[in-house]
């Protein structure tokens, strides 16, 4: 995955965990918490999906690295560089 694909992968997971939200409208730099009110239970879900889909582990102390889409890319790209993108939302 390149960085753009990581954004797609993360948006896809957000769409899965928050089906009522319009993820195409998400701003890259603004905090997800402020945009669509993701709380700790939602981040738990995002991490769960990352594990199920890509087999990567995000320890609890690193949840803060997932604050915005940009910070997600910075944190997840090294972990996902060898993985193939696959989307599941609305499947």
């Amino acid at each position, binding site marked *: 995955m390149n960085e753009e694909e990581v954004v797609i992968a993360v948006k896809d997971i957000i769409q*899965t965990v928050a089906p*009522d939200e319009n993820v195409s409208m998400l701003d890259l730099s603004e905090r997800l918490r402020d945009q*669509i*009110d993701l*709380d700790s*239970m939602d981040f738990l*879900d995002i991490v769960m999906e990352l*594990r*199920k889909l890509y087999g990567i582990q995000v320890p609890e102390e690193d949840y803060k690295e997932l604050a915005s889409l940009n910070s997600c890319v910075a944190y997840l790209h090294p972990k996902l560089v060898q993985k193939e993108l696959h989307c599941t939302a609305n499947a």
Partner: protein
Amino acid sequence: MDYDAIVIGAGMSGLAAAIRIAMSGLSVCVLERHNVPGGLNSYYTQEGRAFDVGLHALTNFVPARTLGAPLTKVLRQLRIRHEELRLGEHEFSEIVFPGERLTFTNEFEHFEGEIERVFPHQRDAFAALVNRVRTFELREDGVEDQSARAVVGEILSDPLLIEMILCPILYYGSAREDDVAWSQFVVLFRSIFLEGLSRPEGGVRRIVNLLIKRLKAAGGELRYGSGVRRIRIENGRAQLLELDDGEVLRSGTIFSSAGRTESLRLAGREVPPEEIGRLTFLESISMMKDAPASFGHGAATSFFCTEERIAYRIPQRLIDVRSGVISAPNNFRSKKPLKEGCMRLTVLANYEAWHKLSKEEYVQAKIECAEQAIAKVAACFFDWRPHTVYRDVFTPCTIRRFTGHVGGAVYGSPKKSLTGESGIPGLVLCGTDQGYLGIVGAMFSGVAMANRHLIAPHQKTATSPRSA
């Protein structure tokens, strides 16, 4: 081990807990004693008519994508889209006391206007109460277990206004006589007045069916006709379940929505009598050819009291008709109007009194009590007895049979366990006795307890992706 988790009861909370557990990739089985799901909020068909039990309204109504609201959070956690519930809001509901009537809608400003109209001298005090409710933070340690009557009584001074505000709150969730814990008052006030009332198209079965569909899709199991006879403790941890038919299952964690008293009894523990809930109701469902609106009845929900002070306590006799709730499902907006008119009337009842009746007396008492209750409210609303084409009545014994709650207690034990801890390792409480209220609250309870006691701890240890 047979399952990572077993959930006792296929009600709203049990199903929600199981969905979360299955979604996280753990194995889970829901055990339901009956052949229908839903628990307290269930449904049945009789003579070709669809009836709902429990649910009058889905409280906590907010539009889709409302930030920070319990409904938004719970739907997200269960990955159900808001539109799938097809919620129709009420036009208005009302609180009716001798000489006074307050109406409320899902726009809170309307209710504020009503308070100003009827109780102008209490306008500022009411604003202070609302502010307390809005800013209150729920704590899990239960320290905040003050009396709502005491807190509200310090802020408001008009005794009638206090009663009128307490009435819907007591009827929609209090397990305590004449009062409710302040923290529960806050939860209920938000869910009824600050958020709002709605009804899913098709009633409660829409929600139950959605939950079951989600559970199956996530790979969870659901077994009907599987009552739990005993929970066995091994090495200090609850881990074995003995079913009614003698089968024994081993589970990593047991989530029980059976109620606090009932769950502890399954594990061989007794609870002090004052911690056993006893508040229960008689409900009649009357079907009519015409909609209630054609008789001038436009309120979706009417909370009423025929005296100045509400007596929310176990009656001495079979029922107490002096206060209660009327639900008119036709008065919720819907794209698919109901085929018939429906009036539901709920009043307080005494389980022991019903329980000791002979079979003949019981059948007779059901008919008479339902008639008596409707006759009592007819003066304030309208008399729907002459228009009734079919009626069904539930007693505390019916509730006992379908929920398994001791004494048919609708809102469970007055003692809640907000952390879900039962006092026995491996046995987690969810549902009514964990402390969230209403249908959204029940689902939230299942979600929150599954996250807290199983999914979050599991997340730390799991490393491999699901093989499928």
